[in-house]
């Protein structure tokens, strides 16, 4: 058995991007102790744009990594430390407010399974901005494809985990639907088919680092923001509707783009180990999107109508933030630049 399946390695800790992330990394690795709440208040107070602020987004990423256990160097005894939870609450209040300000939510559909599913399909099909997947399919260079894999690694090496936080928060048919999707994400009982593992194989096949967090220092705040959005929705049960809406929109904008990503990677000469992940998602997400729209989001809205506004907000937030990430990549490439903070990562 591949040893990486039983004991996934993580990268050692990351470079701080400001006073708050420096204090958090110190505290979580036992180096020092600081007034996290005061630093968090100052960080959000000084941020021009919370969604793109390096110190705020890396700090949220580190605090969530402590909850996931995705970075071994973070002291597990501090997972529920009240100072860290209070600091996280300060950041999350500002983060959620910033998302609610930029995310546009259409008038709500009627609270029925069919109407909610139709509204989600309409919302996600209208999301036709400049397309990262079309660029990858037709034009991207090999370096750009590697950058794309690096940007994706921040979430995809832990694919599905943010949405799994919602399982105990749901009941009945919505819970059954979420578990049906997540069981497939986690390989349906086959460790080598866990989606995060198939992605790790793609990174190795492309000659990249497959350790979790290996590229955190390489990616901009907006890439961390995309994962932090799902982590915040998943970890706060008051946002259960939003994490469900997020998953629905994510699945519904996946199968067709993944076909294009696979085509682009084949065009550039990458082999089956690299394209397997994308090919798998063409078929898998065509199933998941049906279940997510109807049996998960639609059923949840019927069973708990008070969650409908957040279901639609979560879906729109997914499209908005993932759209920002896609725009960041395309705009950097248009200028002839790297989308990474450390372009040498693909050199």
């Amino acid at each position: 058995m591949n040893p990486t399946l039983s004991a996934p390695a993580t990268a050692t800790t990351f470079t701080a991007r400001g006073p708050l992330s420096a204090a958090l990394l110190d505290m979580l690795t036992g180096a020092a102790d600081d007034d996290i709440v005061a630093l968090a208040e100052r960080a959000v107070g000084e941020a021009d744009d919370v969604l793109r602020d390096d110190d705020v987004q890396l700090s949220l990423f580190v605090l969530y990594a402590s909850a996931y256990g995705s970075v071994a160097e973070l002291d597990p005894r501090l997972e529920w430390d009240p100072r860290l939870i209070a600091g996280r609450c300060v950041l999350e209040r500002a983060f959620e407010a910033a998302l609610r300000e930029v995310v546009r939510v259409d008038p709500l559909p009627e609270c029925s399974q069919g109407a909610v599913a139709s509204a989600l399909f309409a919302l996600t099909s209208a999301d036709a901005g400049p397309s990262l997947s079309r660029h990858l399919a037709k034009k991207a260079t090999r370096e750009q494809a590697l950058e794309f894999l690096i940007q994706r690694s921040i979430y995809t090496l832990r694919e599905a985990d943010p949405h799994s936080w919602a399982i105990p928060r749901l009941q009945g048919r919505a819970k059954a639907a979420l578990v049906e999707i997540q069981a497939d994400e986690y390989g349906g009982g086959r460790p080598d088919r866990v989606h995060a593992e198939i992605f790790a194989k793609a990174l190795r096949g492309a000659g990249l680092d497959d350790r979790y967090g290996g590229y955190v220092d390489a990616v901009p705040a907006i890439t961390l923001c995309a994962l932090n959005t799902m982590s915040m929705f998943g970890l706060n049960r008051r946002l259960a509707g939003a994490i469900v809406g997020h998953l629905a929109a994510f699945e519904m904008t996946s199968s067709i783009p993944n076909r294009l990503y696979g085509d682009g990677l084949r065009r550039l000469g990458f082999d089956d180990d690299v394209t397997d992940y994308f090919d798998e998602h063409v078929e898998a997400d065509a199933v998941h999107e049906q279940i997510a729209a109807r049996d998960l989001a639609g059923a949840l809205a019927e069973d708990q109508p008070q969650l409908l506004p957040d279901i639609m907000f979560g879906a729109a937030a997914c499209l908005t933030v993932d759209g920002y990430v896609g725009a960041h990549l395309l705009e950097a490439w248009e200028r002839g630049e790297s989308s990474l903070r450390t372009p040498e990562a693909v050199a």
Partner: protein
Amino acid sequence: MKAVPATISPYPDGPLIVRGDVELVAADGTPISARRRTVALCRCGLSTIKPFCDGTHKAAGFRAE
């Protein structure tokens, strides 16, 4: 383990969702391997991975009724 009876559900303007113990077989008798417990079968005729759905029906504006 006891076999789970199969269900086939046409999803509105979308694929046929198949759950439970079922064997997929091509017209010439060759088995078609289903790589997951729940599968979506193409209903619009446009999928590039037939018999499975690849989501193309959405871009094509497929209507079941």
